[in-house]
């Protein structure tokens, strides 16, 4: 059909938008290898000094390490809870099912600023000092809808009769879960874990309220913004982390799409 052929302007439009989307990211990258601490034309020259200085900047590295700890912990908890809720959702019928599902999905809708101040209120009322733990708890809540969706769609993808077969052969239900269900949804669990990890690692809106004296990387980055001369180092680390996050996302996509 002739009218289905790519109209010239449409592909032009597509790639101009793509260029527009990549432009600021390219600017960030250039900024991290720029000699000056401000980004002004003409560029004076390129340097990898910022990347070198980065590995001597203790506070920056500590913030990055804090983020790593929070992201690993919260993504592990979110995957565990997400797996539990998905099994309940796809394999059980019970009265409070809709309530539990609504509760698990709502963090997707509630504005982060509202959830952030609500958790701040909770921790203050019960005299819990703000720390990496409080940030991690918040990140588990917001990552749960993602892990739930990824694992539940995997569970929907295979027939429950496989489990019935295992139970007819004499396996009790916990054994069936461990030996049959978990291996089948394992790729989805890995994908969920990676997704939750990236959600937490980049999260700023909640962490700003809950981090206290141990900043995660985004919070630290924000606090350093007013010192112009430190900005290139921060951007250099951010570029490295960005590459790491992208690698994780690609990995998560591969696991999500993997068929048995």
């Amino acid at each position, binding site marked *: 059909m002739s*009218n289905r052929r790519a109209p010239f302007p*449409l592909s032009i439009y597509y790639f101009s938008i793509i260029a527009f989307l990549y432009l600021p990211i390219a600017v960030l990258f250039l900024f991290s290898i720029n000699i000056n601490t401000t980004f002004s034309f003409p560029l004076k020259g390129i340097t990898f000094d910022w990347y070198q200085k980065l590995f001597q900047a203790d506070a920056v590295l500590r913030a990055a390490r804090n983020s790593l700890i929070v992201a690993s912990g919260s993504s592990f908890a979110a995957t565990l809870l997400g797996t539990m809720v998905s099994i309940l959702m796809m394999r059980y019928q019970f009265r409070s099912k809709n309530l539990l599902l609504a509760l698990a999905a709502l963090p997707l809708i509630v504005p982060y600023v509202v959830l952030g*101040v609500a958790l701040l209120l909770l921790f203050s009322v*019960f005299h819990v000092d703000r720390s990496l733990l409080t940030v991690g*708890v918040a990140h588990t809540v917001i990552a749960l809808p993602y892990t739930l969706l990824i694992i539940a769609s995997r569970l929907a993808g295979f027939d429950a009769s496989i489990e019935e077969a295992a139970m007819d052969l*004499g396996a*009790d239900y916990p054994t069936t879960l461990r030996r049959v269900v978990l291996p089948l949804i394992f790729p989805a669990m890995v994908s969920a874990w990676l997704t939750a990890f990236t959600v937490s690692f980049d999260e700023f809106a909640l962490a700003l309220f809950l981090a206290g004296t141990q900043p995660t990387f985004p919070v630290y980055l924000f606090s350093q913004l007013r010192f112009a001369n430190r900005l290139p180092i921060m951007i250099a680390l951010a570029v490295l982390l*960005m590459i790491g996050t992208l690698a994780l996302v690609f990995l998560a996509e591969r696991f999500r799409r993997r068929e048995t």
Partner: protein
Amino acid sequence: MGRGKGGSVTVPTPTPALSLFRRKKGEGDQRSGGGLDRRSTFWILYLPPLIWLGLFFLIPILLMAAFSFRADTYGALFGHWNIGLNQYATVVETGSYWRLLGVSSLMALMISISAVVLSYPLSYFLAFHAGKRAGLYLVLLLVPFWTSYLLRVMAWKIMLGTDGVINSLLLYVGIIKEPLEALLYNRNAVILTLIYVWIPFAALPILAALQRIEWTLFEAAADLGARPYHQFMRITLPLSLPGVFAAFFMVFIPTIGEYVTPLLVGGSRGFMYGNIIQDFFTKAANWPLGSALSMIMLAATLILVLIATRLIKLEDLLQ
């Protein structure tokens, strides 16, 4: 002896009907045993998420709701407090809060409409004209979206600043003599940045809706003599509307609660409603008033979601 062996089975099974019955019964017994497993497994699966979400999601929000009815800001957080509606009265009386909520909604509306309009052709291109390379092009579109949100916002700060990329480029080329101050720290900067952030995200539900349209519809329309323009207006656009609505709400709902982007590129002139909530919980330290403002924001968001779920079937999006 063979008979004797048979006899050692306590109840002989002479007829097929009976054996069927017994098998069924045996299976039933096993099932009920399995049922007990299932029931205890249920509680193991049910309690941890329920307790976690109760403690760290439901209770904080209920606590905030309770706090918004606290009349004063004195005394211990957990101590005795007077109950009253005066925080809400303050909100109602203070016109600037409502104005800011109105402005934030308007900004969110502009941002989500722009993001949807800009990304519709992207999805259309991917769905109908990208051919074999559609997968690759889609990844190309999504990489910026997978990039750190904070970084993308910061990139715009570097782009728009007084000594930023755009200003220094314009100065270098000689179009302007003085750096433009009007680029950063206002509402336009927030709107531009957020449209930029949401474009790839808005394209996804529209693409999903376009891909579900049956090819035969286009063929039938072409056979009946419909021109491409009419095909688009009568088939493509109406059938992609669920995706368009989904994209709109998926952008609008998080945008109306935004406070980070205004903080970075908006400055005090680009503040949104979320920023006053943040202020009351940090600098101003008036938590009851901040709670009341949060509850209003939460109610507004939930009403929006209810409207959205009326317009779109959620199952359509999960495919």
